[in-house]
């Protein structure tokens, strides 16, 4: 989300000359000196203060907690918990012991799940957006239909899916003519992936639809005059023009899907089945069931480290190709 959004303010800077300029006849409500230098900071203050309180401070606290032996006995006064050094981390990455092995398993499950869910969400989104680029009857209604899964509150939607996946009275078994369990055992992975794709692809569709509106019409006209058919236009013009949207979209989808907590939590209730034990739910369960916040925090910190690494590498790889085109 970084390289794109920063352009907007940069473009504005050249034009603005907040101080100086034409003679001022106005009554000043804010002292002049403050207005000139301090006003932008004043305007940013509420946003900054809240983000600090709710996101950044807890994150720092979380990293400190990861180095403490923070069990249920110290919840009331966590400052007094003894330091644990790297013990929590050592336990988390000791893949021969049960705790580490379970975390590693959960990590692989999450990776597979993320690749599948993001891949299909993007595919469905881009297909629908391209097929709906041109006007046809019923397009507006169809767009509303496609966005419905995105608009539904996640709990209402996932609870409905849980009902559909019930063994005895569910739609899925009835339609497939089987009597398998979907919410426990191996199948639970597929149930989770289907629900995640259903829930996520409308967002990809929304973003790509917005991206398509910025492709100049002349490109298509020129291509049509040159004799390019519609499929060729899609391959040569539409898909390449979506590259900047895709760069942001794929990253956002990856982060949301990898961190997804709601879907497994609502689909399976407490305690996800082993085959669908995503990292978020794994950390939640191991923190709130055993009340060992220290080891939970260590796992969260490792997760953050992994996400930072992937994001950095991804942005580096994807912007290298685009830098030349932008300049």
């Amino acid at each position, binding site marked *: 989300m970084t390289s794109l959004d920063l352009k907007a*303010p940069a473009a504005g800077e050249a034009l603005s000359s907040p101080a100086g300029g034409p003679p001022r006849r106005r009554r000043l409500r804010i002292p002049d000196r403050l207005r000139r230098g301090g006003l932008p900071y004043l305007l940013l203050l509420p946003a900054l203060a809240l983000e600090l309180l709710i996101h950044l401070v807890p994150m720092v606290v979380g990293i400190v907690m990861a180095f403490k032996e923070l069990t249920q006995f110290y919840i009331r006064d966590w400052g007094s918990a003894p330091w644990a050094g790297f013990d929590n981390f050592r336990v988390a990455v000791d893949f021969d012991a049960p705790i580490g092995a379970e975390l590693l398993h959960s990590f692989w499950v999450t990776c597979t799940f993320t690749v599948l869910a993001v891949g299909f969400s993007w595919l469905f989104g881009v297909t629908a957006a391209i097929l709906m680029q041109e006007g046809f009857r019923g397009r507006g209604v169809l767009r509303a239909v496609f966005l*419905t899964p995105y608009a539904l509150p996640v709990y209402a939607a996932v609870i409905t899916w849980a009902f559909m996946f019930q063994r005895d009275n569910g739609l899925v078994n009835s339609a497939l003519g089987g009597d398998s369990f979907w919410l426990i055992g191996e199948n639970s992975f597929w149930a989770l992936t289907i629900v995640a794709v259903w829930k996520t692809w409308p967002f990809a569709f929304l973003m790509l639809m917005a991206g398509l509106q910025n492709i100049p019409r002349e490109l298509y006209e020129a291509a049509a005059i040159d004799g390019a058919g519609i499929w060729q236009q899609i391959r040569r013009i539409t898909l390449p023009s979506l590259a900047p949207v895709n760069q942001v979209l794929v990253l956002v989808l990856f982060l949301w899907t990898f961190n997804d907590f709601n879907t497994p939590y609502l689909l399976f209730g407490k305690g996800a089945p082993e085959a669908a034990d995503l990292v978020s739910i794994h950390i939640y369960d191991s923190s709130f069931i055993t009340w060992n916040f220290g080891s939970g925090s260590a796992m969260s910190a490792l997760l953050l480290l992994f996400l930072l690494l992937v994001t950095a590498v991804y942005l580096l790889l994807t912007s290298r190709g685009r830098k030349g085109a932008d300049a």
Partner: protein
Amino acid sequence: MPRSTPARSPLAPPPSFVWTRRIVLTLLALFALLPVYVMLSSSVKPLEDTLGEWSWIPSRFTLRPYVDIWETVPLAKYFVNSLIVAGAATVCSVVIAVFAAYAVSRYRFRGKRLFTVTILSTQMFPGILFLLPLFLIFVNIGNQTGIALYGSRGGLILTYLTFSLPFSIWMLIGYFSSIPRDLDEAAMVDGCGPLGALFRVVVPAAVPGIVAVAVYAFMTAWGEVLFASVMTNDTTRTLAVGLKAYATENNVYWNQVMAASLVVSVPVVAGFLLLQRYLVAGLTAGAVK
């Protein structure tokens, strides 16, 4: 209903394209609507019919579940809690985002880049990462000062408004930047202060963007599950937690759960579908440059 987009080609698309479009879009529409149909049809079945083999068409029709949901669980209370929390979080989030976006789009100042990057990077943190510390911080603030953030609506409102804030600021920066600067400079010449220019010129011109951001903020707060499940108690429970408990009892009243799911979805889905074109317009202006 939606704005017309530039047509891809002046020529009519070939039949192969038209048929692909029909088939693929029909399949996707069925996939998207399947759970909605399940909700709708199950919510008008008697309980026995939702416990036996699944049937596509309700054989017996009843509106009883829609009456019962208000008595089986305190749904009205959850509803009010969700409404208060989501409403307050939306109002605060929009106001704060308007100020921040105005600063970024209209002023040059030190640390602007840092601010935008920091705000946006909070989006990538897994909720689980700051859930535990935030829980402890809220509990400790409560113990030290007596301000009850843990278990109160206030704590939840504060938390939720920060969830929608980054995306809202980001979208509004794009929106504000597309409003000609001459407009607010003219207002300043006419005797408005910078805040006057913001409220009399920029905000009225950005109404579609602000509406889109408000819809997004409301949906975010209305649908949040993780923090609601940890940060609320019996009196402040929101729909997310209430409905989940409803659906994981030992004997689930599936017809009632489906009716309740439908009822809690209607406000957000209706609002979203009515205002979705603003969201697309806002995304086009803000996100996709």
